[in-house]
């Protein structure tokens, strides 16, 4: 197999080299595929050579089909754009245009320039002599109405944190994430390149059934957001799993959830990781405490951390390389640090996460831009202006809450039925226009909203 020097071996090449692939599996709720079978065949019906050097959009309904296609396409496609499961259909054309897509791999018969069907059926193929290249992996962030940000990684940046880890051979990973987003993709790559297997999530499956499946397949390492884990602890099947390692990321892990998990799964090592699509995997905290030690900021290592304007900034080989279309701003500053937009506060010898700059709200790991929700609320004819903010919640970490100023001089007493009706109408407009996690959990009618000096809404940081 011809491969340019200095090029990282593709996932497939690394799996071939590992030589223990037959006993390793990717499991979904409905099917499973042995990595050994995948290496001897193709989920793309033998059409991989036609995708050589192309800019490929991977848009599947099935997560397992996406995972199989990713293994095959890495090192073959010039660019691999991974569609998240909840990408609105109206954004698809824009994503394809921005990404310069000239081929589509899908299990749902999408049209397009060159459409290759992927499936869970592995057809035997002869060893294909395909020239390997370092594929650009394009990941989408959960973005605004205007569209998601498209960030370019490569296998090197995605796996820099895995490289050099002391890898155990009997690891069965499980994740509550979807592997088509950064958090889940990290776990897929850990399973593939770390000589393990992986139990995939399924959107159609109940929490209880997912836990029973994870337990039956012997999941040893399980990853999810703090919200996922809170939900696990509320399930009667929480005892179906007995993980050796619990990993939290995607949201602020507070002390309550870390303590609860430690009490419930005392045998498990518990880590919370800071990661984002832009900054890559920043760091992991393994001492069971929320926040991170201040000593990490000045420490020399593979990841450099600095705090500027109270926000966490990270420089490492794991950060995204750039935006697809050089969108709006440079990804990193002159020194190469990526601003994560996460506000931290030093208390004693530890930094604690306070929330996101500019009011961006993290609901169960999904971003909500306040301006988008305000735009929808302001459509109601009785609304003068509104301000959307984060509200702490013990179940999901944060929820969306709205303060609304009504036109005229309405009677804002809680006994006023008109106000209650207006709130219902505003919520109805929001439900019709916004994803469920963006709809305000509560609306408060106020007489005035504070404006900052520049005349903009005074959004209090975090």
């Amino acid at each position, binding site marked *: 197999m011809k491969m340019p020097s200095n090029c990282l071996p593709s996932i497939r090449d690394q799996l071939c080299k590992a030589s223990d692939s037959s006993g390793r599996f990717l499991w979904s709720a409905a099917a499973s595929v042995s990595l050994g079978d995948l290496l001897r065949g193709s989920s793309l019906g033998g059409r991989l050579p036609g995708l050589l050097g192309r800019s490929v959009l991977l848009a599947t309904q099935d997560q397992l089909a996406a995972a199989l296609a990713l293994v095959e396409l890495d090192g073959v496609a010039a660019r691999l754009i991974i569609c998240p499961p909840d990408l609105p259909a109206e954004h698809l054309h824009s994503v394809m245009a921005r990404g310069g897509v000239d081929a589509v791999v899908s299990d749902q018969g999408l049209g397009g320039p060159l459409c290759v069907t992927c499936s869970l059926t592995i057809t035997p193929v002869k060893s294909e002599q395909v020239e390997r290249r370092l594929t650009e992996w394009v990941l989408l962030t959960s973005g605004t109405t205007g569209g998601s940000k498209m960030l370019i990684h490569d296998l090197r940046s995605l796996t820099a944190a895995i490289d050099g880890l002391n890898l155990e051979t009997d690891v069965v990973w499980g994740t509550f994430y979807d592997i088509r987003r950064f958090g889940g993709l990290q776990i897929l790559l850990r399973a593939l390149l770390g000589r393990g297997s992986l139990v995939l999530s399924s959107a159609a499956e109940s929490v209880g059934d997912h836990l029973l499946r994870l337990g039956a397949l012997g999941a040893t390492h399980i990853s999810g957001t703090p919200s996922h884990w809170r939900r696990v602890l509320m399930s009667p099947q929480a005892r179906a799993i007995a993980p050796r390692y619990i990993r939290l990321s995607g949201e602020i892990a507070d002390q309550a959830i870390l303590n609860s998990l430690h009490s419930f799964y005392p045998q498990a090592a518990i880590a919370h990781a800071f990661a984002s699509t832009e900054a890559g995997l920043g760091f992991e905290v393994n001492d069971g405490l929320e926040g991170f030690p201040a000593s990490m900021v000045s420490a020399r290592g593979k990841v450099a951390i600095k705090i500027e304007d109270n926000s966490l900034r990270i420089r490492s080989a794991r950060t995204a390389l750039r935006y697809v279309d050089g969108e709006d701003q440079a990804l990193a500053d002159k020194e190469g640090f990526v601003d994560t937009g996460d506000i931290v506060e030093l208390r004693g010898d530890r930094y604690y996460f306070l929330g996101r700059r500019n009011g961006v709200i993290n609901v169960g790991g999904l971003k909500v831009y306040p301006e988008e929700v305000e735009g929808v609320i302001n459509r109601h004819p009785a609304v003068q202006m509104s301000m959307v903010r984060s509200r702490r919640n013990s179940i999901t970490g944060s*929820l969306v809450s709205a303060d609304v100023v009504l036109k005229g001089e309405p009677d804002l007493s809680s006994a006023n039925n008109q106000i209650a009706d207006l709130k219902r109408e505003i919520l109805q407009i929001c439900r019709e226009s916004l994803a469920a996690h963006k709809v305000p959990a509560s609306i408060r009618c106020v007489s005035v909203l504070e404006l900052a000096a520049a005349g903009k809404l005074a959004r209090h940081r975090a």
Partner: protein
Amino acid sequence: MSVRADVISQILQIRGNTKKEFPPLTDDLVLVDSGLDSLAIAILVTRLEDTLGFDPFAEFDDASPPVTLGDFIQCYENAVKLSAVDSRPTV
């Protein structure tokens, strides 16, 4: 209105916003299998905080989180009892 009635009323309101079919609200109903996803449960807790003035799960540190609807209501009823004890005048 009793705490139980507040909880049931809020659940019915949240359910009313979707077109899904839901199981009946019995004490042994498992919350995560009740058709309310974690977002809906979070909204429920937030609305009850607005109505009752407290969130009993804000500090659920080492305690077991509620599994059934009965457990959930019990958490609120216990918090109300505790606050009644705390607010008794000292002699």
